[in-house]
């Protein structure tokens, strides 16, 4: 496949189509709507299922239904819509069903605005619904990664019978970049043996999230926790730049991570010994790598487009070994490379990483 100029949201939609998306349910909300619009044409043209529902509450329960029947299913939304999906996501988690949810995050809280943000970090990694579960969360920083992570999302969802969230800020959703889409694939028509397809020649299948007896509910939870442990050890993903001799580790994901990369490059040009780690999975968080890098750093600087949410995960991973500081913008403001460079130099001064700064001046 050749590269083509494509917008993030459309790229995700088309990638999903090509890896055999069977059903999509959605509701319009900026900055996610191109995804729904793209699929409204493509899915119908291919004879697949597309429904624009009456609300995100209905959407997530349609997803729940299609997932019960064993179909490859996806929805997409943006922050206020994601909030409405939390009830259904909890039921889906309580029934161990696979599905993919795209959250194109916007400024909040409340109605907020339609500018890019990473304000849903806590929500997607910790509180995607009531009860004890964590979805897998993938955080693309480019259109190509948005495509690749959509493909990966379906693989992981099926592999673990789990919810996978592709969480991107509005910037990644809205920008156009050259990227390569996967080859066109068909919908897999065979259903898993647990799916609801009618009890023909077999005992009835039941999909539910209710266990009245404490012991049974606990047994279910223990099973889910064992699965989460497996995911945690197998699926931590990240990218690194210039960490070998770095004394300050900058950590950022999505657009913030990408801009931090420019800032770290600029800092390197000035001789500052700084490196970057960009988490690609927000859950499971790449805590093992961050923990081992922390052994040889003087400090960590977390960059986010929120008030400091991943910051807590970095602190947990670092475990108090080194100071962790934060630079972020909120309200839909995207930080400029210069701001991050300033934060880097400020942090180096504070941590007395002197020689490198002097060399650069």
């Amino acid at each position: 496949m050749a590269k083509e100029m494509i917008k993030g949201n459309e790229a995700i939609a088309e990638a999903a189509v090509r890896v055999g998306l069977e059903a999509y349910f959605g509701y319009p909300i900026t900055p996610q709507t191109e995804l729904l619009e793209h699929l409204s044409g493509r899915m119908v043209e291919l004879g697949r299922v597309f429904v624009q529902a009456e609300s995100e509450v209905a959407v997530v329960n349609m997803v729940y239904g299609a997932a019960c029947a064993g179909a490859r299913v996806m929805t997409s939304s943006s922050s206020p819509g994601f909030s409405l999906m939390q009830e259904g996501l909890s039921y889906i988690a309580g029934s161990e069903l696979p599905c993919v949810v795209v959250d194109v995050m916007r400024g909040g809280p409340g109605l907020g605005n339609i500018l890019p943000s990473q304000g849903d970090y806590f929500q997607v990694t910790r509180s995607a619904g009531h009860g004890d579960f964590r979805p897998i969360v993938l955080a693309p920083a480019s259109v190509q990664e948005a495509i690749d992570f959509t493909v990966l999302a379906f693989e992981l969802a099926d592999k673990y019978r789990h919810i996978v969230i592709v969480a991107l800020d509005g910037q990644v959703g809205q920008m156009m970049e050259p990227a390569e889409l996967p080859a066109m694939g068909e919908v897999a028509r065979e259903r898993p043996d647990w799916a609801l397809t009618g009890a023909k020649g077999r005992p009835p299948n039941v999909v539910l999230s209710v266990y009245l007896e404490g012991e049974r509910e606990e047994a279910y939870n223990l099973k889910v926790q064992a699965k989460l442990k497996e995911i945690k050890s197998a699926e931590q993903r990240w990218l690194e730049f210039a960490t070998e001799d770095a004394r300050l580790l900058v950590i950022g994901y999505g657009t913030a991570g990408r801009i931090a990369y420019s800032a770290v490059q600029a800092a390197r040009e000035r001789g500052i010994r700084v490196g970057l780690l960009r988490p690609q999975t927000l859950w499971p968080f790449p805590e093992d790598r961050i923990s081992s890098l922390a052994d040889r750093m003087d400090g960590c600087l977390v960059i986010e487009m929120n008030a400091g949410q991943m910051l807590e995960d970095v602190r947990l991973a670092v475990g108090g070994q080194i100071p962790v500081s934060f630079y972020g913008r909120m309200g839909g403001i995207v930080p400029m490379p210069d701001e991050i460079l300033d934060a880097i130099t400020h942090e180096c001064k504070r941590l007395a990483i002197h020689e490198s700064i002097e060399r650069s001046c």
Partner: protein
Amino acid sequence: MIITDFTPPAGMELVYQRPESLVDVQTHYCPGCTHGVAHRLLAEAIDELDLRERSILVAPVGCSVFAYRYFEVDSCVAAHGRAPAMATGIKRVQPENIVITYQGDGDLASIGIAEIIHAAARGENITTIFINNAIYGMTGGQMAPTTLPGQKTTSSPCGRDVESTGFPLRVCEMLAQLDGAAYIVRRSLHDVKNIRKAKKAIVTALKAQVNGLGFGMVELLSSCPTNWGMSPQQALSWIETNMIPYYSLGEYKVIDAVNALD
């Protein structure tokens, strides 16, 4: 499993037995509760149309949350009120299956009113069995959107005051306005004659789905002796004397194609 090893004595014919679509277990419903009657009617209708192996039941949140234990069909339990949305998801990817939601009045007419209206408006090809017992049974008898004016419940202890709580919803009348609805009927479970009519309506609704005619709903006026504070017999009389005057029985919408089925 069906009782197959019973042979009627010579000269007698077996005329009544458990439908194949019902599981041979005791239900958790209170004595005199008409949820059990509704279950039996639905199971008989599924059997008669030979739909057991094609059916998928979506149970609600309410007293009938455990309906999945009683039907010998594939089933799932929806979030409170969301059964029509869940059924939509199932039916759209499994159009060859017969998808049935079974919902109480709190589930369907309060928290899930948006989902049922839009499922009907889309003409979603599913069947809804709507149990209207004018109360929240499972949570212990609070006021429902179908609680009658003046009716005492644990959250309207002086009787439902329409000044502050508004008026009961007549769901059949509302849904009948929608072009997507193919078959909207209200029946009652308070006596044998009406139970037979209810059964016939359920059969018609399922037939409509088999023929892809659009959304079908059968509302069944039902009793909750436990939370009404009545004996089973008093409760059945109360349906007749109090509920039917407010919720008139009848066919609210039967499109021509459904009429042509019989």
